[in-house]
Structures are given as structure tokens and as C-alpha cells.
């Protein structure tokens, strides 16, 4: 039985075991119909031209797991950012783990989507925002149909969450093959501010397939910083669908650090629904072996006087493949737009490949839109220069790669996170630089 059939046939059972009210069930019923007609995307879809899900959808996945209480904090401590105080929302095999988490309802709500979807006191917010931003395409719809758990963050007007929020998904490997469909909803009302760090981590080498959806709403003058760390094991595949609705003068930045995993696909969609909005999309990809990372971005400028900045860097070794498919759409009324898109890649090995497709679709005349894309190598002269100064070849290469990725790292606003990512890169490149960048 194909994964699609399995999902469709288990939908009814899934639905019976939940306690959602009718409005949520309606949304889910509609979503499963969308998935039923569209199915998993294939390479024939223009947006999936370079990424095949065949190998990902092949295993016989368990669609639900029981969670695991035996995991101690010390076992998984390394996957958290520990040197600063944070809120934590932790899921083990898709099930909320209360003893690893630290949530709050003090002023802001940092809690679980399952409770938000079922408890009456959240109904008002859920009615306005849940599944309103996400577009109903196949994978998002699939998630909508099955989603019951994830992070729920609500920041009311003029409130700032005083510490970053970590969302961590751990998978134990207790099931041979596990499919997870977490769903996050983040609402920052007018003038609100929040920082979120998201990580998916498998603890064994069993196959995990995560189809995650995150909806972010940024009200007027709101600021949202979202960091994604994708450094998973070789059998973990992740499809991350993020849908972001921005209102006037808001700023949302998403940084994606892709360092591992079998197949990673990031569908990052920004919708600008007001003036003077700034959207920031940044990413660093450093992969090797047969890993595959695909960044698919959309910035839809619907109103005038807005900006968007995209900057994606990639370093590809061994047989890894990278894909960048960025799209900027400027509507006819959206004059005075400044959209910038850049994608730079380095191929380290002869077997590695990169497919890049930076697109512009522009219907307004008074705009400044530019994109650039390069594929190149490390500068031999620069390497030689460093070697004459006594810096080893490996270290020299690493230094240059750091410099290459530094543009993206620079805008990370949490210093401890920046240090952490710098370490991850050093580990990845197998060197000890000996100083912080």
C-alpha cells in the first residue's frame, strides 16, 4: 500500500480518536480531500523538478507513536541551547514531553497547539488564525488533516517574550519508520516581539519523515525572528512548510541552517499584506554524502513600499545535491518595492551538484528587484596567501568557507546561538579555528 493510500485510509480512525470541535474537523475534512486529489508532489511539478520524494515515501511509516518518558534531559542536552534561559517546547516522537519542556501563560502563551485547538479560551485566536495563512497545497493540506500537536505561541499587543523559545522535536527510533506531522502556530500581535529556535533531531538511525507546517502571523510593527537548525541523522527527512502573513511595518526573519538529514525541503512562503514591511530570508547549507537540501522560497509583495532580502549560501561536498528555487512576485499595485535575492554556491566535490532557479515575476513598474546567483570555487590565490602565512590547507579552506557563510551568520541576533552555529560549522568542516567569528 502506498503511503498516500495508507494516510487516506487511516484518516477516519485518526479523526475518531480526536476531540476537536466541528469547525476544526471541517478544516481537516477539506484538507484531506485536497491531499486526496493532489497526492504527494512528483518531479513533474515544476516546483519539485529537482527533488524527488520517491525514496522518502517508500518506507512503511507508523503514523503515530506513544512517546517515550525514559529519555533523560542529560541524554538530549546537547540538542538544546543551554547557555541562556529559554522557554522550551519539546516533543518526543510527536508527543509532548512535559518534563523536558518549560512553557508559560504569563502575559504570553507559549504552550501546545493541542490544548489551543481544544480549550475554549483559545478559540477566539484559533478561529482567526488557524489554517488561515497556510495555502492549501498537497503537503500543507496533509499536515492540516493530521495535525494535532505542535507549538502554540501567542504574543498579545505590545508584549515581548523576554527569552527565546526553543521548539525541539526528538524522535527515538522506537518505531522502525515514523512519520511526524507537527503543526506550529505563532501569532505576534501589534508591536509584539518574539524569537523562536526550531530543531528536529532523531536519536537513532531509524527512518523519520517529518512533514511540518508553521504558520506565522506578524501584526503591525511586530518583529519575529525564527531560526531553524536542520542537522539531523542520515535517515531523517524533513519537509518544512512555513507560511508567513505580515502586516504593516512588521519584520520577520527566518534563518535556516541546513547541515544534515537525508532530504530536507524548505517551503518558505511570505505574504506581505501591508506597507513598509521587511522580510528577511537567510540560509546556510553545508552538506555532504548523499544529502539533499532544497530551499523553495516565495515572497509575495502585495502592497507598496516594502522590502525583502534573500541570501542563501551553500557548500556541497561528496554526492550531495542542493536546490534553490526562489520566487519573488510583485503585484501591480505594489510600487516602490525593493526586493533582493542572492544565492551563492560552492561545489567542493565533482559528484556534488546544484540546481538554482531564482525567479522574478513583476507586474509593477516602479520597483527595484534584483537577483544574483553564482556557482564557484574557493579562491586558490587566497588559499595560497594563507598557506604562506602558516595556515594549513584545511584550516585555510575552512576559513574561506566561514567567510563565505558569514553574511548570513552576522544577522543572527542571539549571540549564544551564533556561537553554537559557528561551532556546528567548525565541526562540519572538521577544524578547530581557535577563535570566534
Amino acid at each position: 500500500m502506498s503511503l498516500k493510500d495508507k494516510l487516506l485510509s487511516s484518516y477516519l480512525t485518526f479523526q475518531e480518536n480526536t476531540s476537536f470541535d466541528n469547525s476544526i474537523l471541517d478544516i481537516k475534512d477539506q484538507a484531506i480531500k485536497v491531499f486526496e486529489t493532489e497526492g504527494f508532489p512528483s518531479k513533474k511539478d515544476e516546483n519539485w523538478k529537482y527533488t524527488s520524494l520517491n525514496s522518502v515515501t517508500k518506507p512503511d511509516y507508523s503514523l503515530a507513536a506513544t512517546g517515550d518518558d525514559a529519555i533523560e534531559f542529560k541524554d538530549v542536552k546537547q540538542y538544546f541551547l543551554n547557555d541562556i534561559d529559554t522557554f522550551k517546547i519539546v516533543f518526543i516522537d510527536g508527543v509532548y514531553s512535559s518534563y523536558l519542556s518549560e512553557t508559560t501563560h504569563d502575559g504570553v502563551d507559549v504552550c501546545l497547539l493541542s490544548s489551543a485547538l481544544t480549550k475554549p479560551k483559545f478559540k477566539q485566536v484559533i478561529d482567526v488564525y488557524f489554517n488561515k495563512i497556510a495555502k492549501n497545497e498537497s503537503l500543507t493540506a496533509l499536515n492540516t488533516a493530521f495535525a494535532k500537536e505542535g507549538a502554540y505561541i501567542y504574543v498579545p499587543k505590545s508584549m515581548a517574550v523576554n527569552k527565546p523559545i526553543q521548539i525541539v522535536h526528538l524522535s527515538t527510533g522506537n518505531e522502525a519508520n515514523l512519520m511526524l506531522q507537527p503543526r506550529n502556530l505563532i501569532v505576534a500581535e501589534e508591536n509584539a516581539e518574539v524569537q523562536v529556535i526550531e530543531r528536529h533531531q532523531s536519536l537513532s538511525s531509524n527512518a523519520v519523515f517529518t512533514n511540518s507546517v508553521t504558520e506565522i502571523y506578524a501584526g503591525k510593527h511586530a518583529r519575529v525572528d525564527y531560526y531553524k537548525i536542520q542537522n539531523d541523522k542520515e535517515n531523517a527527512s524533513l519537509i518544512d512548510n512555513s507560511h508567513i502573513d505580515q502586516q504593516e511595518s512588521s519584520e520577520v526573519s527566518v534563518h535556516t541552517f541546513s547541515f544534515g538529514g537525508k532530504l530536507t525541503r524548505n517551503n518558505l512562503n511570505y505574504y506581505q499584506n501591508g506597507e513598509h514591511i521587511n522580510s528577511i530570508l537567510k540560509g546556510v547549507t553545508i552538506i555532504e554524502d548523499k544529502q539533499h537540501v532544497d530551499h523553495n522560497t516565495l515572497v509575495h509583495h502585495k502592497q507598496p513600499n516594502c522590502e525583502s532580502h534573500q541570501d542563501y549560501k551553500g557548500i556541497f561536498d561528496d554526492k550531495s545535491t542542493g536546490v534553490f528555487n526562489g520566487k519573488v512576485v510583485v503585484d501591480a499595485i505594489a510600487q516602490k518595492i525593493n526586493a533582493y535575492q542572492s544565492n551563492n554556491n560552492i561545489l567542493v566535490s565533482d559528484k556534488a551538484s546544484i540546481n538554482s532557479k531564482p525567479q522574478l515575476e513583476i507586474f509593477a513598474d516602479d520597483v527595484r528587484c534584483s537577483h544574483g546567483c553564482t556557482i564557484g570555487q574557493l579562491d586558490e590565490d587566497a588559499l595560497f596567501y594563507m598557506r604562506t602565512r602558516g595556515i594549513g590547507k584545511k584550516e585555510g579552506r575552512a576559513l574561506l568557507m566561514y567567510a563565505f557563510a558569514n553574511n548570513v551568520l552576522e544577522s543572527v541576533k542571539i549571540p549564544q546561538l551564533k556561537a553554537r552555529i559557528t561551532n556546528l560549522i567548525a565541526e562540519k568542516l572538521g577544524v578547530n579555528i581557535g577563535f570566534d567569528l
Partner: protein
Amino acid sequence: MAYTEDDLEKELATKEYKYGFYTDIESETFPVGLNEDIVRAISKKKEEPEWMTEWRIEAFRYWQTLEEPEWANVHYEKPDFQNISYYSAPSKKPKYDSLDEVDPELLDTFKRLGISIDEQKKLAGVAVDVVMDSVSVTTTFKKTLAEKGIIFCSISEAIKEHPELVKKYIGTVVPKKDNFYAALNSAVFSDGSFCYIPKGVRCPMELSTYFRINQAGTGQFERTLVVADEGSYVSYLEGCTAPSRDENQLHAAVVELIALDDAEIKYSTVQNWYPGNDEGKGGVYNFVTKRGLCEKNAKISWTQVETGSAVTWKYPSCVLKGDNSIGEFYSIAVTNNFQQADTGTKMIHLGKNTKSTIISKGISAGQSQNSYRGLVQINSRAENARNFSQCDSLLMGNKCGAHTFPYIEAKNKSAKVEHEATTSKIGEDQIFYCNQRGIDTEKAIALIVNGFSKEVLNKLPMEFAVEAQKLLEISLEGSVG
């Protein structure tokens, strides 16, 4: 009164198609519709050998299994392939031995097109092959060329007189099963040009083909094959016009270029098919497959100025097969009213040290849509491949659109690929800067537009550059220099 951007926009929007006349020449036209009999009839009409007929039939059978592609960023009413006549030829006399025998009315047509054969013969020294309604009517300068061993004739003549060359090369770059329109063309092409430059010969003059659709309800399916043997050089020009009609006409051509070792082909196109009226009615559908193959150290350079057609859908491409080969693509695409253009190029790097350059300039006005779509592919064995692409779009008015869809695929670590694209309008500060220096707004706009497209205009042969500038219909007074 000062000439402002609005005026320019208006001028662009209201420019009339000056080639929209129809010449009343008696012609022989096949009944509408397409089936194997028609394909055989075309082949018979052209007195083609058996292998050619079979080639066509094979292409036709394959075409029947295909569906019309829809991926391009254009919207149009699909042509009804059974409602087109696939062969139309001026019928007075099947063939002309010299210009004197040409129907004076036909000659008059060419005069009105501004490509007076006489004039060009004298002034520019251009050898012209004129294809009217799919049939080659004149080829000038044949004798001069023959002295050098250059073969320049219609493709139907080539099939008869140089079957070994045609058989060897036709369909090698654009296989008959390449795509929907290439298959259709392979089945029904009625004429086109053939050109062969022997080893080490530098073609002394520009070769030129002029295409015109004259009859109503016909499609034009011509096929051009240019073979440059080792170490040779040729510059080839192509121009096209059509009468103004309310219905859409189909033009599905195939152009194949083959540059053997150390050869160079420069192929320039000024495409000015009827674009439809200012309400978007009528106009030519221009669905063309153009591709060139470079062997070792060879170079192919495509230059195109696209101003016509209701819908343009073409991607002149280079397959850089040989080591050290070079591919170039220079394009200006101007769309206005309801025109749609989805054009660009493909650079396929297969050999080592291959280089390609892509410069694409799009100017959209009115309610037109202008897309650049390009592919740069570096294959795993293409060591040290190098590509530079630049796509700039200029928008005039807020009802038009400019789109860029570049595809970049690299499979070799030594590849260096750069792609840049910008979209903007003529900046107020640019005009202000010029004003500041005593240049009035009219001249400033001319200067900026000229500068915007100059990189491409410079690549055109002189006499074409003049025509192209005329076609752009942009006042460049005092700034051309």
C-alpha cells in the same frame, strides 16, 4: 514640449504595424487540415526523395502522440491544427532564374518591407534568400558564393541537389522528436534555407533570409540548416514580417546550426511578425525551436531583436559539445499592447573549458508580459566551464509584467556560473542626473533606453542594427553614436 516617459510609453503603445499590408499574389494553397496524405503531398510537391518523405512521416506519427506543451508563461487560444493550410506558395512561376523574372508585385512587396533586394544587393552586399509563405522565392548572389564553394539555397533545393549533406546533418541538433512544434515542423516544413560553408572559408558577405507570411489561414513552417565546416565563418541574418489579420497565424520554425571544429556562426534575427492590434486581436504565434551545436573550439553567437508576434515562445540554444567552444546569446525583447514573450536560451556545457555569455534585455509596455527563461547546465565532465548571464528588464507603465525564470544546474565543481537580473523603470534620479548636465528629458530617455539595449544592438551587423533601432521605435535623436 518636453518629451517625457509618458510620451515614450504612448508612442510605444500606439505604434502601428507598418508591415501589415497584404500582397495580392496568386498562390497555390493546400486545403486546410493535417494528415499523412498532406504530409506526403507536401513531400511530393517538393519532389523529395523517398528518405525525406519517410523522415517526415515518422515525425508526423510521433507528433500525433504528443500533447501541446503548456509550461510557458503565456496564455493564448490554442491553434487548431486541422484548420491551417500547411502549404502555400506564390504560384505564378515555380522558380526564378534571376531577379528580372520575379513577379514585380512581389518585388514591390519587398520594397515596402524595406528590404529591397536590389538595394541590399548593391549597398550591403548581402545575399538574400526570401521565403514567402513557406516557399523560397529568390536567392541572390548565388554565383559569387558558389565560387567560394559556399552553398546557399532553399532547403528543398538542397534536398535535391545536396542530399548527402542534408541527410547527414538534418535533425542532428533538433531531432524530429525534440518537442511538439519541432515534430510538427519536421513533418510539414515546406521550405527554408540551407547553407554550407566549406572548410576554412570565411563567407565574404552576410547571408540573409527573409520570411513573410502572406496568405490568410496558412501556417509557416520553415526549416533552416546552417553547417559551418572546420575553420569556417559565416554571419547569417533572418528577418520576418506578416500582414495584419484578425486571426492568429502560426509560425513554427526550426533552425539548426552546426559549427564544426574551429568554425564560427553568427546568427542574427530581427523578428517583427505582426503582433496583433492594440486590443490584442490577431497576430502571429511564433513557436520556434532554434539550436546550435559547437564542436571543438567552435563558436555560435545568437543575437535577436524580438519586437513582433502576439505570442513568442523561443529559446535559441547552444550545445557546447567540443572542448573550448563558446556560446553567446544577446537578446532584446520588446513587448507592448497585449503581446506575450517567453524567450531566453539554453547553454548546455558538455566539453571542457566551454564558455557562454547570456545578455538579455526585456522592455515591456502596455499590457504585455515579457519573460526570460533560460537554462545553464554544466555537466559533470565540463571542467572549467564558465557562464555569465545578465537579464535586465525595463517596465513602462504598471499594467505590464516582466518575469525571469533562470534555471542553473551545475554538476562540476570547477564550474563558474554567475547570474544577475534586475528589473526597474527609468529612474527619476537617472533623468535628473542628465538634466543636471544640460541634457533635456527627451534626450535623457533616449540615452537611457539606448544604453539599456546597446550591449545587444552592438552585436548586430550594421545594416540590421539600423533596422533594429528603427523597430524599437524609440526616438534616439542625437544619442546614437
